């Protein structure tokens, strides 16, 4: 049976690549821990948390899960559907703001 081409690529990566990514994941995790350790707050905190999160996720998916070497037909089929979650987040931000507003208006203020 012929091994599909992508596997041959995966076979030839040097171990060093994985070690480098591993070290980077450690560094990024340390950075995100330090955000909490130093007690950063507000938009600085949130943007740093999200930045380190996305960098880590990207490294894991691209290198450890070999997505960087897959054909685009698979990459796009897997990576585009989760974008729907962003729409879902936006909807629920509206919804929760509204709920919060009504709770403040009708429950907390009335006490």
């Amino acid at each position, binding site marked *: 049976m012929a091994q599909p081409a992508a596997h041959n690529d*995966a076979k030839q990566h040097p171990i060093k690549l*994985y070690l480098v990514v*591993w070290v980077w994941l*450690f560094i990024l995790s340390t950075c995100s821990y330090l955000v909490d350790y130093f007690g950063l707050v507000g938009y600085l905190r949130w943007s740093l948390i999200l930045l380190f*999160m996305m960098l880590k996720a990207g490294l894991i998916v691209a290198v450890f899960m070999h997505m960087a070497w*897959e054909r685009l037909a*698979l990459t796009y089929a897997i990576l585009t559907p*989760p974008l729907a979650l962003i729409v879902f987040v936006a909807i629920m931000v509206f919804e*929760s703001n509204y709920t919060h507003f009504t709770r403040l208006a009708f429950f907390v203020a009335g006490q």
Partner: protein
Amino acid sequence: MNEIAPTTLNAKAGHASGWRGIVADWSSDQRAFKTVSWGKAMMWIFLLSDTFIFGTFLISYMTVRASTVVPWPNPSEVFALEIGGRQLPLLLIAIMTFVLISSSGTMAMAVNFGYRRERRKTAILMLATALLGVTFVSMQAFEWTKLIREGVRPWGNPWGADQFGSSFFMITGFHGTHVTIGVIFLAIIARKVWRGDFDHGRRGFFTSRKGRYEIVEITGLYWHFVDLVWVFIFALFYLW
């Protein structure tokens, strides 16, 4: 299976790139994922569905946290550990993060050695991954015990919004279950690798078919996904 797929399809693979390549692959009839075996494609599709499960958990957590009028308990304090009389914020969670990342590192190397047909190294690295996974679950069990002793319940806790407990137990519990299943999965495949099943073409107990080293990579995909979910939980639940 690859045996069934006409070789002409694979021969054509790898020509067009970019959008043209995607359109060519998807409109080519019979199979869209040319260079990917069914096992790997199915694992990816499963992981995609799992993404939506964890996505909706995290979104519901966001919704309850943003809509409550009671202050949310400060995770930095809730998950602090006292060592030598000093309160260290989130220490256990940080260690758990490093353990899980390390397990992803050993898993990635196991996949690499698997494709080099070095079965002993592959099996040992997979077992190391499983051991780190067990360590992670044990630390999570410790954390759950600690919080339950302190009075955290799905319906309330001593520090603030009631929804904290239900979000915490639901999200970390579901993730911990995934890790546990991954450890079992790893142990089964590591045993097969160690025994040389994929070198000698030994038939599987359940499927009666010959396995391939690719299963190491498929197991790896699942394991990295578990790590990936933890990246999001760590950022959005513990650090936010």
